[in-house]
């Protein structure tokens, strides 16, 4: 199954600044997914990142706020821009490829606190 290394694991940031989250996968994958999980809430898909093309954003998420890079088949970054306290959440990347067919593996998450 795929193994994802996500960093940073946590950060405390000042409002108005930006944070870039990195995900490295140990195998080549076509699609990578970025989720947000607010405290005690479900996982909400931010965008799908394909290598060599623009990311596809879900309703309520825009590229200016959450720019994504996907330079190759094993790596992606998500930037949270111009942060406000409402952006405080856990951010997770995910890929298809786990212990079962069509299962998804998640990175360990980035716990972001904006002050």
């Amino acid at each position, binding site marked *: 199954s795929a193994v994802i290394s996500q960093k940073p694991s946590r950060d405390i940031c000042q409002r108005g600044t930006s944070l870039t989250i990195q995900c490295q996968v140990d195998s080549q994958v076509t*699609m990578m*997914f970025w989720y947000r999980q607010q405290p005690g*809430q*479900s*996982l*909400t*898909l931010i965008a*799908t990142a394909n290598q060599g093309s623009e990311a596809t954003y879900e309703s309520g998420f825009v590229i200016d706020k959450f720019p994504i890079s996907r330079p190759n088949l094993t790596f992606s970054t998500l930037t949270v821009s111009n942060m406000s306290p409402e952006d405080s959440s856990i951010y*997770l990347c995910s890929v298809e490829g*786990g*212990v*079962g*067919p*069509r*299962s*998804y*593996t*998640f*990175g*360990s*998450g980035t716990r972001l606190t904006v002050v």
Partner: protein
Amino acid sequence: QQPVQSPQAVILREGEDAVINCSSSKALYSVHWYRQKHGEAPVFLMILLKGGEQKGHEKISASFNEKKQQSSLYLTASQLSYSGTYFCGTGSGNTPLVFGKGTRLSVIA
């Protein structure tokens, strides 16, 4: 469309059984079940692709009724290690998963 999970929370004593339900207003191609412990990433439990088929993972099994667009997760003889939040994720072909709001399960001694 986000699937609906019930109950929102449940408390069990060790050895008791529980059922967690997941339903959708959309036709489903697959239902995925994940468990997330506090402070950790969600971990895959199982996927169901066919109507009525049951899958198993240790003492955890699940069913998927395509016609009713529902899935149920069965936890039997619960253990302390079963505690966590259970999410169902629904998929339609190659689209990304949409997760329910989760069911918080607490198993006490």
